[in-house]
């Protein structure tokens, strides 16, 4: 037996050069992304840190970094949440039309058109928001003030330019629509035919079938798609900077001419003239945005990754 054990070492496993090169490239690409992300985080932390002790003069008269960032963060979250409230039902409706209602040819065209929305540069959305959407919203805002003025959201006085946070949110909603639609329609289309047929064979109408099978199956997908759309809306800069007439207040009044600004728009508008500690202050607000966006995206991915537990439970 010892003789066989002393046999020559087995030859090294066969490795194809192509595989080795490709796995190396893929790994390098993955590592690059991690390094870039870490680099951004480190940069933001180091450059933003001096802002913690910055004097009021560097922060537009605010006596502390929290007082400076909080209104911006509030505006960012408000605009993004409003955008999601508008975009999510719309996106899910469009996704359902594409995956379950429209004839195949039409649904493919519709899918392309929605994807095309994602390709429009945000500056163009900004221009569209200022020149097209905002003036047309004025009438609606006046109507809202008159008829729903008792709600804190519509107390007015209605903006005469229409460049309110609600208009900005509408623009954001259009911008976030493609990503939410794309993800939800993929999930909806993956609903097992078996379950859909089970519902139909029981005498479910199309809508009942969707409620019984498509929505339960796609629930986590819908949540994560919304989170990713929220991530997009949180970080959007140009369109908001252009559309929103910001005064930096904290207010739930959605239709007046005094609006909270957003972090990204504030950076874009202030950075040109900023110097010294003012730059650090802006970078610190960028760090806050980075963290918030990161958390939202992380949650979205985590929920998407948890996926469809039904089968395994």
């Amino acid at each position, binding site marked *: 037996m010892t003789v066989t054990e002393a046999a020559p070492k087995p030859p090294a496993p066969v490795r194809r050069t192509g595989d080795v090169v490709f796995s190396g490239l893929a790994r390098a690409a993955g590592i690059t992304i991690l390094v870039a992300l870490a680099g951004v985080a480190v940069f933001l932390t180091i450059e933003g840190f001096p802002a913690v002790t910055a004097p009021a003069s560097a922060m537009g008269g605010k006596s502390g970094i929290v007082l400076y960032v909080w209104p911006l963060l509030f505006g960012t979250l408000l605009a993004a949440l409003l955008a999601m409230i508008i975009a999510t039902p719309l996106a899910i409706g469009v996704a359902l039309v594409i995956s379950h209602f429209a004839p195949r040819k039409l649904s493919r065209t519709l899918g392309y058109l929605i994807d095309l929305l994602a390709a429009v540069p945000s500056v163009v959305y900004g221009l569209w928001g200022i020149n097209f959407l905002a003036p047309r919203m004025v009438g609606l805002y006046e109507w809202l003030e008159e008829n729903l003025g008792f709600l804190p959201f519509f107390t007015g006085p209605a903006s005469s330019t229409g460049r309110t946070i609600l208009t900005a949110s509408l623009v954001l909603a259009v911008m976030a629509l493609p990503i939410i639609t794309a993800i939800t329609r993929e999930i909806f289309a993956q609903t097992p035919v078996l379950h859909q047929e*089970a519902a139909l*064979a*029981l005498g479910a109408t199309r809508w009942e079938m969707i409620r019984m099978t498509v929505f339960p199956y796609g629930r986590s997908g819908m949540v994560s798609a919304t989170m990713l759309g929220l991530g997009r809306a949180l970080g959007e800069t140009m369109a908001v900077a252009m559309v929103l007439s910001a005064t930096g207040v904290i207010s739930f009044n959605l239709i007046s001419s005094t609006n909270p600004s957003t972090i990204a728009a504030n950076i874009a508008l202030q950075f040109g003239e900023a110097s010294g500690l003012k730059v650090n202050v802006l970078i610190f607000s960028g760090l806050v945005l980075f963290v918030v966006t990161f958390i939202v995206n992380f949650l979205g991915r985590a929920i998407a990754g948890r996926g469809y537990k039904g089968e395994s439970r």
Partner: protein
Amino acid sequence: MAKSIDVSDLDIYYGDFLAVEGVSMTIRARSVTALIGPSGCGKSTFLRSLNRMHEVIPGARVDGKIVIDGQNMYDADVDPVQVRRSVGMVFQRPNPFPTMSIYENVLAGNRLNSKRMPKSEADSIVEKSLKGANLWEEVKNRLNKPGSSLSGGQQQRLCIARAIAVEPQVLLMDEPCSALDPISTSAIEDLIHDLKSDYTIVIVTHNMQQAARVSEDTGFFNLAGAGKPGRLVEMNPTSKIFSNPDEPSTEAYISGRFG
């Protein structure tokens, strides 16, 4: 509630493709009718046309008549949703709704048909249907567990319970045992025996012994030739089909000499 089905001159199309041609048959009430034949001969397509489930595929349509209880199911004013509520279906692979409990799975069809039902009524429907599907003793203590926690054979019986909970006139079964082991298969076959006193049952099967065991009548489907549509070759009492069929091709198929 069991009704007989009269099919006359039924052609089934997928778009321009004629899949099944010229089927005429009478399916007796309160009996089991088996459909056998090689793969792709259109027996499943035909079965699905009996409750208009084939229409789920875009472009699918039929010519001809299927009359249940004096009503042609393909009349323009007949709602396919109503047809499916009176003609239940069990599929090849068990498909309980994964997000629903056993209890809710049984009631899924009833929840569609009626808006609100008192808890006591729901309980009695669940118990009656699960007993009808020979599943009650196995699951009565875990009705709130998900349907997907059951074994394959139990899941299939759950699907049968779900189908009979709405008290259909006809029960269609599309190879209900082909994904199951022999023990579960035997349980389902016993169940089919019990169910035929209340329901008209049509079952598609690849297993000829199964057709011989469970059915009163058997229809043999075959392709008229490569690329040609499927058709009904012979329909006769099962005992005759398996001992002395009219058509030579039926005998060739049954005796395994099929080419």
